[in-house]
């Protein structure tokens, strides 16, 4: 039930509903073939994305995290992506200090019409993560091993 062994890595995308999720849909409607590693979490706005979601994902098992929102000035909520831009940019600085390759996290802007661009972003980011390989994970508490029972079955 986990990622396909040897073929896929675990990439999580946080996409704003109005632009980038739509852009990913547009790419789908256009049948723009993409690698299958990415799993998308839909959020209303890139401003909703607490940078800690990214850190959580990276620390707890993701090999890469991609955030995409509306282009600056094009936010459905006017300002959300402006806040996001600052916060995402700042949180990136934490990765090298933790020993996590900063290339494991990228953010970008894709509008609902940019299906092609989305395809390109997914392709290049997935390739980038595959180049980096599986991420090292800090050990979890042994007493929580039971939580992985599902995977074992």
């Amino acid at each position, binding site marked *: 039930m986990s990622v396909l062994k040897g073929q896929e890595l675990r990439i999580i995308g946080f996409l704003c509903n109005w632009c980038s999720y739509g852009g990913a849909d547009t790419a789908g409607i256009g049948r723009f073939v993409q690698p299958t590693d990415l799993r998308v979490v839909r959020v209303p706005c890139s401003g909703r994305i607490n940078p800690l979601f990214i850190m959580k994902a990276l620390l707890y098992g993701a090999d890469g995290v991609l955030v995409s929102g509306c282009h600056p000035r094009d936010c459905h909520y006017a300002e959300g992506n402006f806040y996001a831009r600052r916060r995402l940019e700042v949180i990136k600085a934490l990765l090298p200090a933790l020993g996590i390759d900063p290339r494991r996290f990228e953010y970008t802007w894709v509008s609902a019409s940019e299906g092609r661009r989305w395809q390109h972003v997914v392709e290049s980011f997935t390739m980038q993560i595959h180049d980096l390989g599986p991420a090292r994970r800090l050990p979890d*508490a042994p*007493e*929580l091993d*039971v*939580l*992985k*029972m*599902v995977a074992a079955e």
Partner: protein
Amino acid sequence: MSEQKIVSRKFISLGYLPAWLEELALGRTVYVPRQEGRTVLYRPFVPGDLPEFSRRPAESAKHVLFPRSEGLFSFCRKGDPGAPDTRGLLLSESAEPGQAVIFGALSCDARGFFAFDPVYDGCGTKGIAKDVYYLKRRENTALIVKACKTPLSTCFCHWTGGGPASAQGADALATDLDGGILLQAVTKKGAALLESAKLSPATDDQEASARAAHEAAVKAMPSSPSLDGAPEALLGLFDNKAFWHAQSAGCLSCGACTYLCPTCYCFNLTDESNGIAGTRLRTWDTCMSALFTMEASGHNPRRDKAARLKNRVGHKFSYYPRIHDGRFSCCGCGRCIRSCPSSVDIRQIVLNALKENADV
């Protein structure tokens, strides 16, 4: 030392210590004080890496018997693939703990378990429930304490009924002598550990030197005030808000004091789950946190830090002794003082309480 009967005695020269520890580590986890980063902690012995005795460990050894976090049991909701509508529940208790030895703990660490024992054995609540997890570990773990020579400025074990070379709560006592260590077992479990070819028989002279060392260590400690009146004094001050407000002014409400304390035994229970599987965790908890007593409704009987500090001091020097034969649930190790970012001094609070109560 005097209050306990010595079951057996051995001597080990310093050169043999690593080999003996390695021998002990066969089939057991041996915990020793080890330098970690900028501090000394009780960590599993690693061959080739000698215990660190030049500094006293920052933490107590209680995590060996009472882990910071342990899974009490796991649960799994099994769906029947044929009929997903029926869901059974699978509960399984966590595995039994293995054998362990703590070597080189302090006397105060051993006395800390004294505070645990009656509570976790159900004595405090007159036998209603035995904590099988702690008791099993207690049974499986042998404790060799090492006598202290010089006190730290924060030490006050002798105020609380202990001493720098007490073996209370331990299985054996180790004392540094020239060229080696004298080992004196006070329990059968301790004696069994001393059955090793790496150890040589101890002499009466060695025991005499040890006794002298113990006496010197006791002497090195400043004189101790009487805390006999503490239980009543603290109860008497229960409603004295100003007193507790002043005592707690510097408190930051963190858990450093309680987590490093050898006698603090409070815990929390939380569930963690993922999908259909989960576990119930028992984790250390601290009465210094407002959340400790916060009720779901938002009501909190100990809303401010004064009330919480009062509970910590009160529990150790009043409520606990009133249930447990007058014994304090404080071993005087001073770790709460040393580890407190604000240097809150529990000794001073108890003395202040005695004074304040006397003044009233």
